[in-house]
């Protein structure tokens, strides 16, 4: 495939590198001479210095035969115009634009860009998906020991709720060191301390038993009763 990338910043560089490694014909269009030189030094003769929104630049880049046109500069308006010029003047079938303002996603789509990718939206989607099912947040990995300190909020449905710390079936080499209640008061628990819903639990555990600890925290009460 012949792929044109507009913008030779970090995203453009690594994208080009990966696509070249995958065996594609790649051309990066970049305005800045120093960045062009860097890319040429690292990836070879795959850079064209110029403005990726200019018809003349895109003409000499052979945009007419590009299978894919990707605009990843730091400015949404430049990515939009580069893709629109490629699509409307050179009939490129597929255009992809990076966007910074996630609200521009709908604008880009309605203005004819095939794919608009917002890094902000991707990160948001990820944390929104992951937070409820993975309540374990690694705070610190202890050097050399394979241990880490993690923090988690006890969900209201958890089988831990109402149990004493001593009753919990924790993984091997796992210790609950601090429990912070919903009012924000931290306590160092003993085996008689009762876990409540919404408590923040700070624990030290082996890195490999993170999943087991997560399971203890998130297993719903009913499920444990059935077993």
């Amino acid at each position, binding site marked *: 495939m012949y792929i044109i990338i507009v913008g030779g910043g970090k995203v453009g560089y690594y994208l080009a590198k990966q696509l070249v490694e995958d065996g594609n014909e790649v051309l990066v269009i970049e305005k800045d001479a120093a960045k062009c030189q860097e890319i040429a030094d690292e990836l070879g003769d795959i850079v064209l210095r110029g403005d990726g929104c200019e018809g*003349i630049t895109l003409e000499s880049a052979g945009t007419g035969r590009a299978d894919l046109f990707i605009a990843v500069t730091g400015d949404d308006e430049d990515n*939009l115009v580069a893709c629109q010029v490629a699509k409307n003047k050179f009939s490129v079938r597929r255009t992809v634009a990076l966007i910074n303002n996630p*609200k521009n996603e709908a604008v880009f789509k309605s203005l004819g860009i095939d794919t608009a990718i917002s890094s902000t939206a991707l990160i948001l989607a990820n944390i929104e998906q992951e937070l409820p099912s993975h309540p374990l947040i690694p705070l610190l990995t202890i050097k050399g020991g394979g241990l880490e300190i993690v923090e988690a909020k006890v969900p209201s449905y958890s089988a831990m709720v109402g149990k004493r710390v001593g009753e919990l079936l924790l993984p091997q080499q796992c210790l609950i060191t601090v429990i912070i209640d919903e009012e924000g008061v931290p306590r160092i628990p003993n085996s008689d301390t009762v876990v409540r819903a919404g408590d923040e639990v700070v624990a030290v555990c082996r890195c490999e038993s993170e999943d087991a600890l997560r399971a203890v925290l998130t297993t719903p009460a009913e499920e444990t009763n059935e077993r």
Partner: protein
Amino acid sequence: MKIVIMGCGRVGTELATLLDREGQEVTILDIDPDAFDQLPTDFKGKRVVGNGIDQDVLRRIGLEEVDAFVAVTPGDNRNVMASQIAKHIFGVPKVVCRIFDPIREELYHNLGLETISPTREVAQLLKKALEREPGGED
């Protein structure tokens, strides 16, 4: 008429002043708060600091309700993007977009935007001026 002008440079300032004196309801938008310094002291229109390619900014200034939108920032691409948002997202009835690059101007004109390329226009004016007899006014 309610008119929004994006870009308070020389042209934006001049246009805003003309329209304001005519009694139009003008809002002028620029990302640089210092840009408004060139407006005359008796300018009655609204000055708004904000980015015209941000829909939230355009919504805040009530773009759904305006009669006309003019994009005259120094950036062709910013003008093109803001004008397309004004026309296609907010449905502004009259949108005029300045594009310096004649090639891009032609493209967006063909895509249905009302465009003006000062490069092309001024080149033609200069050519006409050169063709006139020296000393002749018209």
